[in-house]
């Protein structure tokens, strides 16, 4: 069984570790590129959201590399993502591409089904080995998060951000290659050491929170490198959700006790009190949260036609009115020109700077 799975930012690192430790044979699709998008757009329904198209492209590219099984996430609630594995299975079948589809869903109470499904995937691995594999994948996800959040923190602060990115890429490669925890810890601590001496800039930075639909938040191809554009404009970006939090919640059923997303759900009240699917409520909550922490602005990203985020978007003006935090929303789909996105980001940064200057002048 040659098993593949979709890209979502650096998720591939944790999943590869998991599969390898389970004694499986993972086939990593090539990094998402224009070719991936082209393949996905050609075969997916036009109004399906961008993640489905990119996933499909990933699968088709992995198929060319010999993959015969797909590991795909599922989900519950009004977001269409929960149904994507089924849609993708049908599309692949229509294309005459025979690939087995294994859907990982949060257990949501039904442990028996979860157990049978997992068992069918892991073959004769003992449960102890499965747990160990999950734990190692978890450490990898945490290591990736440590690197990413440091990158977001440092990028606007250093004189040579490109040099930082090169060091980051190397550290990421080492995390991916690491076979044990020692290797992981070393890769992270070396990254911290290597970036410590780099010449920095001084001055007060603008801080922006990135919220929205998880795939577009985490995947730089899908969001046209919004974090990077902002970082190079001298803005520190903080994500509302990191990879390990999503993995814990969606794939491991909240197995690990880390700061979950419950505080964001609470912060969303009174603006949005219902679960609207996906991370719609968390988007609103995170915006409130960032405002309370004194952030200068919030950028929301979502795939075009994403229902939960459209609901959140329509609530955000009320948050802006009450908390005085400006927001900027992007709906993303296949598009080769980033000019429109960059123009809006630049204008948003101008807006935030002007606001800050005005506040300083007024002594607020």
């Amino acid at each position: 069984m040659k098993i593949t799975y979709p890209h979502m930012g650096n998720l591939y690192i944790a999943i590869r570790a998991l599969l390898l430790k389970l004694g499986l044979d993972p086939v990593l699709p090539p990094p998402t590129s224009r070719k991936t998008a082209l393949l996905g757009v050609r075969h997916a329904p036009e109004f399906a959201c961008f993640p489905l198209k990119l996933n499909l492209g990933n699968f088709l590219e992995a198929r060319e590399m010999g993959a015969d099984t797909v590991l795909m996430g599922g989900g519950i609630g009004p977001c269409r993502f929960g149904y994507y594995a089924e849609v993708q299975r049908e599309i692949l079948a229509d294309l005459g591409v025979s690939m087995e589809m294994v859907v990982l869903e949060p257990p949501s109470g039904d442990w028996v089904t979860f157990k049978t499904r997992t068992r069918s995937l892991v073959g004769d691995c003992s449960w102890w080995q499965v747990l160990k594999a999950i734990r190692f994948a978890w450490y990898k996800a945490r290591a990736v998060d440590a690197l990413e959040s440091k990158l977001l923190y440092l990028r606007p602060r250093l004189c040579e951000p490109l040099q930082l990115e090169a060091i980051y890429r190397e550290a990421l490669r080492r995390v991916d290659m690491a076979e044990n925890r020692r290797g992981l810890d070393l890769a992270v601590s070396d990254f911290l050491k290597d970036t410590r001496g780099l010449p920095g800039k001084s001055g007060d930075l603008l801080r922006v929170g990135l919220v929205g639909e998880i795939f577009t938040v985490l995947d730089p191809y899908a969001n046209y490198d919004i974090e990077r554009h902002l970082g190079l404009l001298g803005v520190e970006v903080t994500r509302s959700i990191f990879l390990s939090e999503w993995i814990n919640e969606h794939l491991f059923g909240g197995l690990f006790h880390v700061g979950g997303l419950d505080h964001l759900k609470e912060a969303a009240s009174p603006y949005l009190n219902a679960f609207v699917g996906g991370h719609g409520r968390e988007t609103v909550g995170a915006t409130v949260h960032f405002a309370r922490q004194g952030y200068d602005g919030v950028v929301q990203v979502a795939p075009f036609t994403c229902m939960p985020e459209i609901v959140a978007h329509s609530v955000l003006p009320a948050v802006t009115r009450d908390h005085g935090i400006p927001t900027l929303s992007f709906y993303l789909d296949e598009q080769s020109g980033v000019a429109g996105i960059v123009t809006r980001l630049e204008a948003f940064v101008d807006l935030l700077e002007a606001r800050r200057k005005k506040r300083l002048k007024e002594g607020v």
Partner: protein
Amino acid sequence: MELYLGIDIGSVSTNLVMLDPLGEPYLAPLYLRTQGQPIAALQRGLAIIRDQLGKGDLVCGVGTTGSARQLAGVLVGADVVKNEISAHAVAALRILPEARTVIEIGGQDSKIIILRDGIVVDFAMNTVCAAGTGSFLDQQAFRLNIPIDEFGALAGQACTPVRIAGRCTVFAESDMVHKQQMGHTLPDIVAGLCEAMVRNYLNNVGKSKDVAPPIVFQGGVAANQGMRAAFEKALQAEVVVPRYYNVMGAYGAALLARDQTQRRAGTGFRGWQVSTMPFQQRSFECKACPNACEVIEIKQEREVLARWGDRCGRWGVTGAEADQAVQQH
């Protein structure tokens, strides 16, 4: 005299504005068609301005804006390269310091800028739909065989503007054809079209924005009195169209260049010879990694002026190192 040059290269027009040190236009602003060739349009504009300058005139600052702002900035050696939203806001505030809303409709995009106490507090640009921009008006004027500059005046003669679906240009067009065949008069149809475009703009671009007077209406489409009247009717407020409505981006860029160079002396302006220099541009797909970035390169004779479009910064360098990389490519 000390002069400040603002350049706005958009999809449809290339505009140049010269300002005196007080921020007033020095020569008549230029409004040229880009025609898909931003470099040629820029050089044509620079040549026209150069020929009008007197002996003592000296360019002390240059600002660029518009979708080709980066390209233009490299070619002329700009002191400020600014996004068009901020540039338009600066210009509108200069004309009407108490403005609270700016409506800007250009050739292929439209924006709304919300201002409070002289600063931008919110903005939006059209995203997925180009309905309600200048290009669509152009196209419909052509179809109805009306010169575009008479379009607005015609709308003013309407008695009962017809209702046209403004959601999408495809539906708008079939609605218009239908109304024509039903026997509605041309002025009523044209006025109806303006109202449909205004509805589309307010629903898409102005969605959930706090549109408050005073309102400034700028961009090429502001020339159309029919559109202005339709906005006034929909918003129930006076809409101000500034004198230099179609070059406001360039005007803003020049103002920003003036502020910048007055604070920090010295300009990067490369001189008027830019208008006659041969520039070569090419693009290629980088093969170093699967991202396959489209890299754009601007050369002046053999010297690389700039490259951009890559994600990793590999091509972002100029000089010998990059030239070597290109040869290996």
